[in-house]
């Protein structure tokens, strides 16, 4: 399992957190995106450990991924 967190309009639509079952070898961010609707690669940033990660970053069971839509700013 991996914990996925959403913010802003994504959180409103999907919920703040979701748990996703992963194979033992993990899966890439690109694969993870496809499991949810609207995680547009051009605008929704993926973060692991508070750092932006690329599409081929491998998420392992127990990891936590944040999906951040465009910031509105303060």
């Amino acid at each position: 399992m991996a914990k996925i967190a959403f913010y802003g309009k994504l959180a409103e639509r999907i919920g703040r957190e979701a748990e996703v079952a992963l194979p033992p070898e993990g899966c890439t961010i690109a694969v993870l995106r496809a499991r949810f609707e609207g995680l547009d690669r051009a605008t929704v940033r993926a973060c692991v450990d508070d750092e932006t990660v690329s599409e081929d970053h491998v998420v392992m069971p127990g990891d936590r991924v944040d999906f951040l839509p465009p910031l509105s700013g303060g």
Partner: protein
Amino acid sequence: MRIEARLAEAPFQPERELADFSAEGAGAVVSFTGLARDETADGAKVAGLYLDHHPRLTEKSLRDIAASAARFGVAAVRIVHRCGAIAPGEAIVFVAAAARHRRAAFAAVDCLMDALKTDAVFWKREDGVDGGRWIEPTEADRADRARWSDHCPD
């Protein structure tokens, strides 16, 4: 430079932030307060604002933005930013800078506000009579931000 950056989950009083902000012996203190309005830029009624935030990245973005004021040669800066549900009239953001020369204090606060408007890690929803609308940065915000990106005008 003293740096203070804080995320406020409950209403805060700008005047207390100003009272409590030590000028460090500097002679000039500039403050900016942003208040939630009861209408949008287009004049539509707003019942309130909701600012979603990230448990660590938001406060980190406030600290990073505050630290960027160092190039203005100011003695101290403070940023306080609300999150959560904000009613019209409540303060959203307070920014202050203290400097020996007033021009530096003005430039620092002006620049920090422009940076907050685009770079602070928030997701803003305006709650109107016909439901909520999530806001994304405007071109004007990006243009304001770009004013500072290469060099400081003063």
